[in-house]
């Protein structure tokens, strides 16, 4: 068990909203004596002192040294254990300007608060019994969730869908283990062999369970795409119009574009959001032979980016020389879209049949279709939450699932080698323990329960 590293009885604060220009910002303060300390910067202090728990009050933040009013705020007052952390807390809603926020934070430090470490509010909530471990992990995800989609994913997990899925797998495994344990706990001649699972069936069952675990474990990878964004590289020959598409997708003209080939000598990166899914867009340098060492360097890095991307949008200049030949060189891949660009050009040749998307990055014609197709493919691959499946998001859960999966695979292999059941049971226990760590249950009594209810045993 990891021992919590933070102190737990001092005053902490943190900006709960992002460090960015926004209309409103939320500053969360927590710790015993938190309201009294905040009275040093809140005006009028008596209003804060008189406020009942779970109420909103209005007032001002004042610099205690100069007496200057820094901001007009509303604040949520929590007394007793009913706050997020389970401690006395105050949540200050301030205006979102960065200089103002800096000043408020400075005042809080003077009033005796310290900056909270990462996850410290959630840690206190956990330690104060306000949430269990799976939930605490999910909250961490919400806090750092990049977009709505990831948020939804985290919310689904909060409602316990990972637990439900793990419990389902564990349930099956428990029944299986009970059949094995039964044979260990009762002598051969005291159980009806007709009741018993056959070793052959057992292997099949173990394999099926292993597959369920693997599927759930894969969702971690998919959840990663949601949290960290889907990496999409724009690739293609020089002057195929990658930067134009990049800009089109970004709306704002962030990347430089010109008719001169090789303008993008390195790569550009931007984050956009497609129906709640974060996309990391890379505009890469065009691929061509070049003498310029700078450009060569850029092309090399572009190759790496393209190789590591989750999806590639490959652009072909429809007005160039031999676009059809270029398209023919590319095989169809699930993670690549071939775009037939510059359809607006009079020299544009008609797109060949097959999976090719006609497009004009300049006019925007065909962009919606490309986005639609991209979304469809991303969803198919990375959005289990949209499919209503559980998604695991913490590395701890993934590791535990992996441990369980390894134990089951070993059990299956051992079974093939004619291992006695008492050793097989060790593997099953390992798997059960790992799953139990996710759901917070221990197996011992449950196995017995199943033994007695499913099998007629005992002299």
């Amino acid at each position: 068990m990891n021992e919590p590293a933070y102190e737990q009885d001092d005053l902490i604060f943190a900006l709960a909203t992002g460090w960015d220009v926004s209309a409103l910002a939320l500053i969360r303060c927590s710790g015993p004596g938190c309201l009294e300390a905040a009275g040093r910067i809140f005006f009028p202090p008596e209003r804060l002192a008189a406020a009942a728990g779970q109420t909103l009050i209005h007032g001002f933040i004042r610099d205690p040294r100069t007496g200057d009013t820094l901001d007009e705020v509303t604040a949520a007052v929590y007394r007793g254990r009913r706050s997020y952390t389970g401690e006395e807390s105050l949540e200050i809603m301030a205006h979102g300007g960065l200089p103002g926020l800096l000043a408020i934070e400075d005042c809080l430090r003077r009033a005796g608060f310290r900056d909270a470490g990462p996850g410290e509010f959630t840690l206190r909530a956990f330690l104060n019994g306000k949430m269990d471990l799976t939930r605490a992990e999910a909250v961490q995800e919400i806090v750092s969730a990049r977009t709505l989609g990831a948020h939804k994913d985290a919310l689904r997990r909060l409602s316990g869908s990972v637990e439900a899925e793990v419990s389902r797998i564990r349930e099956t495994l428990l029944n299986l283990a009970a059949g094995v344990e039964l044979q260990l706990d009762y002598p051969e001649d005291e159980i009806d062999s007709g009741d018993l699972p056959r070793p052959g069936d057992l292997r099949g069952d173990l394999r099926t369970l292993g597959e369920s675990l693997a599927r759930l474990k894969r969702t971690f990878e998919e959840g990663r795409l949601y949290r960290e964004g889907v990496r999409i590289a724009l690739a293609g020959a020089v002057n195929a119009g990658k930067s134009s598409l990049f800009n089109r997708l970004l709306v704002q003209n962030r990347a430089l574009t010109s008719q001169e080939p090789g303008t993008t000598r390195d790569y550009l990166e931007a984050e956009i959001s497609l129906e709640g899914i974060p996309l990391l867009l890379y505009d890469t340098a065009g691929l061509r032979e070049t003498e310029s060492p700078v450009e060569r360097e850029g092309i090399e890095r572009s190759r790496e980016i393209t190789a590591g991307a989750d999806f590639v949008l490959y652009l072909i200049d429809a007005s160039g020389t031999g676009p059809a030949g270029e398209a023919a060189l590319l095989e169809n891949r699930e993670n690549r879209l071939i775009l037939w660009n510059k359809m607006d050009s009079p020299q544009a040749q008609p797109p060949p049949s097959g999976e090719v998307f006609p497009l004009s990055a300049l006019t925007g014609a065909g962009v919606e279709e490309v986005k639609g197709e991209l979304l469809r493919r991303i969803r198919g691959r990375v959005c289990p939450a949209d499919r209503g499946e559980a998604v695991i998001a913490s590395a701890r859960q993934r590791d535990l699932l992996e441990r369980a999966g390894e134990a089951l695979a070993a059990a299956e292999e051992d079974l093939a080698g004619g291992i006695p059941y008492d050793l097989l049971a060790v593997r099953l226990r390992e798997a059960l323990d790992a799953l139990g760590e996710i759901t917070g249950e221990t197996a011992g009594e449950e196995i017995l329960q199943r033994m007695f209810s499913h099998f007629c045993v005992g002299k």
Partner: protein
Amino acid sequence: MWESKGETAIVVGGGHAGIEAALALARTGFEALLITQNLETIGRLSCNPSIGGLAKGNMVREIDALGGEMGKLIDRTMIQFRILNRRRGPAVQAPRAQADKFLYSRTARQVLENEKNLRLFQDTVVDIITGPEGRLEGVLTGRGLRIKARTVVITTGTFMEGRVFIGGYDCSSGRLGEPAALGLGPALQKRGFVLGRLKTGTPARVHAGSLDYGGMERQDGDKERLPFSFSHDRIDRPDLPCYITYTNPETHRIIRENIHRSPLYSGRIVGVGPRYCPSIEDKVVRFPQRDRHQIFVEPEGEDSREMYLNGLSSSLPEEVQQAFIQTLPGLRRAWITRPGYAVEYDYLDPTQLSPALMAKALPGLFFAGQTNGTSGYEEAAAQGLMAGLNASLFLRGMPPLVLSRAEAYIGVLIDDLVTRGTREPYRMFTSRAEYRLSLRHETADRRLTEKGFHGGLQTREALDRLEAKRQKIEEIRGKLKTARFVLSALPLPPAAPSSPEVSTPGDTAPENAETSAPTVDWPALAGRPLEQALKVPGVGIRDLLPCLPGGEAYTGPGDLEALAQVELDVKYGGYIARQEIQIKRFEKMETSRIPPDLDYGAVEGLSSESREKLKKFRPLSLGQAGRISGIRSSDLALLMVHLRRRRRTGEEPSPPGDPPGDSQGSA
């Protein structure tokens, strides 16, 4: 008034727990007094005529390793012996013996009578006596005697407010025909102890001469017999067969038609019975799809003509019992000598006890056996031994001996009882132990003999014997590393190699062919070191003896045990090593001590339910706290933080070095 010169320790009850407790006290030098209602019924086997079995056999050997008596008693009185579960792996094999009930009981009494510090006395204890400051001072008996003692071990079995049921008949009894022990239960309750009701049952006995043996399968014991006791080299006892028969649809019809006449189903019995050992009416009702149940017909003794119908436990009216028994092949004309019956009795909620089995509320008062909610002779004896030994350590002013879950089934048993309590009669199962690979029966001596010796119970000879065995094991292991496999050394082409376990001629046919040993490619092993060859599935250590220098000399009983142990250590070394890593992790939590007087009110953040639970249980380690039902990992985190801060601020000046889960009797 009883006169006593030295300090007296009183043991209440003469069953399997009482026997071990009294002997442990007497053998560690205290004047012990065993009080029982009836000297004729010491060491009775009230139910099945056998000792041992899966997990239970391991406990008998653990008792023996610690210096207890049960293993020696069964070795001297067995009438059949078998190793169970040979095919299912080393960790779950266990010895079981059919006992001559009458000889067992008589032998137990002789041992007690010949113990020099021990006195037997016939009376009924009706209350304990406490002094002005609430200190334990002794017991009060039914005949009005006040007997002084500084420590009392209560082992009342099924007798405390016991009540026997057969159909519409019921009567105050602890065993059929024997009066219950009245008074003590209510007296303890008045003193604030929490008691509950449990139920157990036993089948009818029939006369051997009224059975048709041709209608039943005969079941013989193993030819090769392994003594339970590490101090015995051989068993010289008769071998009697058991018989197997089956119930049938007619049996089930009779039971179903009369089910309303069962005191269990009419609601007259409130106590909870064991799920794992259901009555025949329970089995018929709960598993209606089954058209037969297996019944074992077992002799009760060499000189007795009574037979025990294992599997037919019932509390239906006697005429119904007679009717359904006579539907079984072999039993058509069975003459019932004693009917089956259910017995309901008071038990103490064992969570009121410390891991030493001492009442948390009253130092010096110990409880052991079925009184604590267990079932089974072996579970009772194990507790009796630990309660007796700990009572002795208490009198000596020494820390208690608490066995951990990782070192003995006895540790698992007691930890489960005092940490989780029980709502049904608790029986030991191998699956209750997290580390059963380490708890094999043949390793009981190396796990526990030294602890028994340091506790003052085990003899110097036992320690020497263990040392000799250790050396023998080292010697064999050394040879296995250096000697190589020579194909020509094998006596015959090994067409049918022995099973991976050390097998014996009495072994039964494999029923689970797919898990039995694979065939071995012997020529491929030529030239390999023996240790490597032994790891190959299907190769047994006895197959390799001809290649082992001096191997032909390993024929003594001690040698066989040593060989068996080496074989398992080598074959399953990988698994054992993994388990040892787990045990290390486990021990870390076990040794994170919680002071018994910790103020849980001062631990911030605990939910009120958790706080109440911890206050009630007062766990001695974080490991134990984690096993209390309803305590969550977040509660443990809070406790950990609190304890750390407490240590830092100096509230707890010196963190004690002695972990609670470890042997403290070795001081």
